[in-house]
């Protein structure tokens, strides 16, 4: 294990940054470097995944203990209420004493108003359960390894358009990975996770798959978890309400370039997803145009989950399709 706080000989990523990545507290400017480091350093990657599993376990324990934590033992609750009553009675007595002193001062000095402090209002009625911080989310469902080995059956553009419906004011642009020899092969809406999410897949010249999972999480969620199989690498990061997971073959250091392209391409270039488009019960029948054309924002955008089966693999071509890129003619490179 690397010494804490010290940069490794192999990169400038330190131990604190690895934990910050796990905890969702890594500054955005350092994500690319840390993710790149994890691609190179299998030992650190394994540790980070183990720490993620620990956090996921703690999240499950926390969720499982909700029922326990809500029900404070009646005798303890009673004892607490008694204590509060005692404290309140003492405060009232003190207030009375303070009032007497104040009155005396007023009488003696004959000037100004002397304020006496007020007892706190309220009473012990019930113990309210409110989560103090958002639970970690599993936006993509369980293990990604099960899906990452097969081509998604759905349509990529329809999936993108569907995800765009869940974004209100945060524009999203997906990177163009053709320069890295990756050809898009499909996409699908994910319905097993805790958040609206899609999977987008590319393949290289050898038929190996690279998957980008994109999810829209609640605004204050700090963490997102995924699990993958042993032969796969999973890299995670977050930008605003969007969480990303890039999954690819473990033995492909070229994934670093993919990560960099994805991170760089999210903010500029690539294929734009319009923000503010309401998600309907089914994908937009004009998938490609919907993914690239700006759509006026509705007054109250609604968010509705879409069953995965609602996105058919084969769909009729629109009357006037707008095809932003034609990728099939390009010869894919190998990862």
């Amino acid at each position, binding site marked *: 294990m690397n010494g804490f*706080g010290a940069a490794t000989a192999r990169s400038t990523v330190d131990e604190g940054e690895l934990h910050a990545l796990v905890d969702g507290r890594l500054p955005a400017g*350092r994500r690319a470097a840390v993710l790149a480091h994890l691609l190179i350093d299998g030992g650190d990657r394994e540790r980070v995944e183990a720490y993620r599993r620990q956090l996921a376990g703690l999240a499950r324990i926390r969720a499982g203990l909700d*029922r326990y934590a809500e029900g404070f*033992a009646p005798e303890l609750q009673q004892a607490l209420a008694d204590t509060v009553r005692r404290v309140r009675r003492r405060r009232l007595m003190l207030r009375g004493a303070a009032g007497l002193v104040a009155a005396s001062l007023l009488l003696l000095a004959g000037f100004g108003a002397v304020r006496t402090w007020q007892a706190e209002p309220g009473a*012990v009625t019930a113990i309210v*359960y409110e989560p103090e*911080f958002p639970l970690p989310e599993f936006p993509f469902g369980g293990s990604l390894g099960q899906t990452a080995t097969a081509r998604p059956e759905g349509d990529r553009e329809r999936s993108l358009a569907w995800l765009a419906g869940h974004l209100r004011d945060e524009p999203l642009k997906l990177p163009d990975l053709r320069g890295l020899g990756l050809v898009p092969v499909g996409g699908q809406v994910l319905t097993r996770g805790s958040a609206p999410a899609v999977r987008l897949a590319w393949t290289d010249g050898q038929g190996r798959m690279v998957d980008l999972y994109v999810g829209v999480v609640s605004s204050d969620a700090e963490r997102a978890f995924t699990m993958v199989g042993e032969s796969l690498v999973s890299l995670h990061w977050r930008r605003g309400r969007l969480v990303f997971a890039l999954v690819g073959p473990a033995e492909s250091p070229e994934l670093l370039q993919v990560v960099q392209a994805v991170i760089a391409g999210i903010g500029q270039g690539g294929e734009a997803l319009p923000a503010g488009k309401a998600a309907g019960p089914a994908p937009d029948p004009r998938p490609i145009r919907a993914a690239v054309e700006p759509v006026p924002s509705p007054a109250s955008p609604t968010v509705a989950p879409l069953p995965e089966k609602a996105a058919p693999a084969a769909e009729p071509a629109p009357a006037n399709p707008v095809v932003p890129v034609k990728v099939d003619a390009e010869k894919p490179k190998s990862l």
Partner: protein
Amino acid sequence: MPWDPNPDESPSRSVQSGASPARTRRSVDEEVLEHVSGLRRYALLLVGDPHDADDLVQECLVRVIAQARSWRQVNDLRAYLFTTLHNIFVDGHRRRHKHRGDVPIETVIADLLAPPRQQDWVELRDLIAALQVLPKEQREVVLLVGLEGLSYLEAANVLGVPVGTVMSRLSRGREALRRLVTHGATTRLRVVK
């Protein structure tokens, strides 16, 4: 490049840094009670015994409510509550530990948890057992950050240590947990605070 774990936060280690205007509109008692579930959950995994945990929380609440006047200036009530609980825990740790029963915590928690799937339960049981083997300084940090979601600075405030110490304990704690879960909770740990 040196990394600042809390670039936007004040380096102040005090939780008493100013009045919260919103607090005056609500009952202090109600505000305290909102944090009971978090305190109980944290205390249970910290001390490993439900009765000790409830005693700890009870003592914490009584102390805080009884001193309600003095904590009106507290900005972060949750951190203040956890700090109080931490202090009581540290003060009475040896006494409570001496009286702890022989029932393993994972067995106790099994009765408290909502029934998970078998595979999930095996993993959770290992994690709970491993947590109890950690030195308490590391266990506190792992739980405050991982279970209760405190920031590194908040955890530092609660424990009264520098942020660097929190991160060091977090790193050691997580690594120890990883090894314990991998090799079994019976592995002996060298105590490093």
